[in-house]
């Protein structure tokens, strides 16, 4: 499973083996299209079903039924004719649908007639004072360790933030015998009121009963402080304490581990680097690709499915994967499309899976002070650029994230903007009195993930390459 691609060209290349990518692969392959599934992880599942084929956590109730739902889809893909390559890093995609991949230290290129991006979500940056201290990590990173290695915190642990994944992680840690000293809930009180109009759809959705049960389970075991409006981590060289303000109450809690989470946002890097048009989503407060009804983007031949198309969770991701793949089948092998679920049925499934999403988006819309930091708080971890540095750069003429690169090198480090991009856009928008849409985002460039010089140098030469050089 770790070899180079068997062919130079495929009908469909799916990037990412989470719920959307697995569903897209199964659908495209079932219709007889030559399909390649590329995934960065050692096994299928993405983040939500991480290590589904290998996790040491075998007691089913510990990770929950939603987790194990992934196993069936993995089986469907594995029994299909699709070629699957894990530990494959896709570092380039362009509008000619040429895909640069790094597999086992060597680079390869494949060409696709259709590309389905299922690159999922990233955790939203949570730039509070002290967030770069050792001992502070994202909830997602903690969950990765939990699923892959059954590792849970056993020292003084504080979880802070908001959103469904925060509660899921807390429940999973507790079920595996991990320690949580306190949960600091940053959900804004005004959001409860704003979310009310969407409450009916939510209480009648699948999220409701599961979510409620999970929160009850956690609250029975851990002290939860709600209405947190200020948060800071502190310590000399590593985390020693977490301070917060909730209402009139101010407290400092000693802590060895602080897990932060305030929701997830689409992982846009590969799509943006390919030239896919994105727009600012003012509810989810992130960039989302501009898509047609079947996940098609502004770049001919590239579709996006799953949370990369806008956050809507694993169940919706599966349906969106099937829709995008059906779109590819309709374009490339219309006769085979008749065997698949009709598009109308898929869209009905999608509406059902997305029910309740507006409530969650509104309730868990992160507060301004946790998205737009001030003063000495670090924004860009790679280059150690503070919020004040960025405001100062605006004052001397930096008009957007790309100009800021020249002043401060933000977004030019190894994370390629994943940890600072949204913060920089919103901070500059506020400093300049513009909307995030007007301010824009970093122009992202391949390699979307770093590759070594030696690996690039070893790229196979072809006759066309030689001609390209003569022409240049």
């Amino acid at each position, binding site marked *: 499973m770790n070899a180079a691609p068997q062919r130079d060209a495929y009908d469909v290349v799916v990037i990412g083996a989470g719920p959307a990518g697995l569903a897209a692969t199964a659908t495209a392959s079932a219709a007889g299209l030559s399909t390649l599934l590329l995934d960065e992880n050692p096994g299928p599942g993405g983040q939500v079903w991480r290590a589904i084929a290998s996790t040491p956590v075998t007691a089913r109730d510990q990770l929950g039924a939603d987790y194990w739902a992934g196993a069936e889809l993995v089986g469907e893909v594995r029994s299909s004719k699709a070629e699957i390559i894990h530990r494959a890093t896709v570092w*380039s995609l*362009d*509008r*000619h649908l*040429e895909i*640069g991949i790094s597999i086992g230290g060597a*680079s390869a*290129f494949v060409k696709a007639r259709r590309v389905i991006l299922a690159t999922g979500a990233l955790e939203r940056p949570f730039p509070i004072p002290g967030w770069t201290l050792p001992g502070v990590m994202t909830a997602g990173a903690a969950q990765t360790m939990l699923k892959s290695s059954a590792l849970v915190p056993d020292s003084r642990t504080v979880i802070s933030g908001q959103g469904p994944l925060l509660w899921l992680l807390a429940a999973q840690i507790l079920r595996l015998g991990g320690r949580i000293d306190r949960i600091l809930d940053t959900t804004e009180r005004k959001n409860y009121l704003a979310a009310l109009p969407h409450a009916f759809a939510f209480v009648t959705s699948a999220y409701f009963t599961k979510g409620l049960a999970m929160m009850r389970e956690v609250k029975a075991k851990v002290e939860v402080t709600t209405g947190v409006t200020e948060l800071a981590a502190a310590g000399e060289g590593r985390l020693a304490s977490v301070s917060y303000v909730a209402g009139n109450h101010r407290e400092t809690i000693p802590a060895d581990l602080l897990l932060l989470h305030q929701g997830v946002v689409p992982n846009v890097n590969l799509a943006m680097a390919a*030239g896919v048009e994105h727009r600012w989503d003012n509810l989810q407060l992130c960039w989302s690709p501009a898509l047609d009804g079947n996940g098609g983007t502004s770049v001919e031949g590239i579709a996006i499915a799953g949370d990369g198309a806008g956050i809507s969770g694993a169940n919706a991701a599966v349906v969106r994967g099937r829709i995008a793949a059906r779109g590819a089948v309709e374009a490339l092998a219309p006769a085979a499309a008749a065997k698949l679920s009709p598009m109308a049925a898929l869209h009905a499934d999608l509406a059902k899976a997305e029910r309740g999403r507006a409530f969650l988006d509104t309730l868990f819309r992160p507060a301004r002070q946790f998205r737009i930091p001030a003063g000495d708080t670090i924004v860009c971890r790679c280059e150690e650029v503070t919020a004040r540095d960025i405001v100062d750069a605006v004052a*001397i*003429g*930096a*008009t*957007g994230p*790309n*100009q800021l*690169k*020249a*002043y401060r*090198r933000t977004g*030019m*480090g*190894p994370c*390629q903007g994943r940890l600072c991009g949204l913060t920089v856009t919103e901070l500059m928008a506020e400093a300049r009195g513009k909307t995030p849409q007007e301010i824009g985002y970093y*122009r992202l*460039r*391949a*390699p979307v993930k*770093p*590759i*070594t*010089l*030696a690996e*690039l*140098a070893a*790229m196979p*030469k*072809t006759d*066309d*390459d030689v001609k*390209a*050089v003569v*022409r*240049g």
Partner: protein
Amino acid sequence: MTKLADAIIVGGGIHGCSTALHLTLAGMKPVLIEKDYAGRHASGVNAGGVRQLARHVAEIPLSIRSMGIWERINELLDDDCSFESHGQVLVAENETELAACRARVAELNALGFTHEELIDGTELRRLVPAVADTCPGGVVSRRDGAANPAQTTTAFRRKAEQLGATVREGVAASNVRREDGLWRVDVGSETYAAPVLVNAAGAWAGRIAAALGEPVPVETVAPMLMITSRVPHFIDPVVILRGRKLSFKQFKNGTVLIGGGHLATPDQDRNETVLDWPSLAISARTVFELFPVMRDATIMRAWAGIEAKTKDDLPVLGPSAHHAGLYHQFGFSLHGFQLGPGAGAVMAELIVNGGTQTRIGDLSIDRFRPSNS
């Protein structure tokens, strides 16, 4: 509504911004029109080489003029532009190439130019210790160096604005025409009018020249660059090769910029480029061979900026051959960044004084007139 200005400059690259600044220094109030933002294309994303080395003889006087300005850039702009002068070194990889270097330096000396200096293998390794042992020597231009291109272009723009230039970004200049003795350009719903028009529109300048009846053999190109992760400091000067397409520069923060002129496919109407990875792989192979210390570095990012390249690889700089009050400043063909400060100064002299002491006659648009070609 029509607004009057002393000059209209189309294009907010380093050339347009430098001309705008030098016009304000001469007491004029120009307006600069940039369809995106200053430094959006080649001027902001080039390799930042400040190089007199290995230039065509026709542009050496302009390059020398520019070098004088670079060395006082902080005084001019109140911004150091991250300019550093550690020299630029051209590496000969074998004796044949070294012989060509020797002939070149002799030719320049005969013309009275002394900035290029032939060096042997010992001096080469003193300047560039990491270079492969097989390289027998090369040429150095010791006053050369590098600067941060986006910072520099922005600094010119900012200073020009401070001294009274109007900078209009985000709206394209359209309907360029001459009426009632004035150049007129529409910018959105407004019209600017001025006795002087400077065409400094980079990759878009050829279209303007052609529309005004002065077509120039110019194509749109997008030279590619890539930058690595930080590696331990191992090199000070900028290095270019005599025989292969490679330029190489390590920044203070340890990152290494690799360029050399391999081209991406530009799409100028979309403001986009599609990178040619097989060509970048060739650059990677060249670095791999010549600088073993770089083998484990990672490539962080690759990009290309859109610009204009003329048929003879020389810029068009000077007055129009057809129209009073029209000046061209474009077609810098992958080596215009270092020339920017000097070209703006020269352009201001041409506009204000009607002439310049700097020898630029060979860069005239006249050379492309049908009768001259």
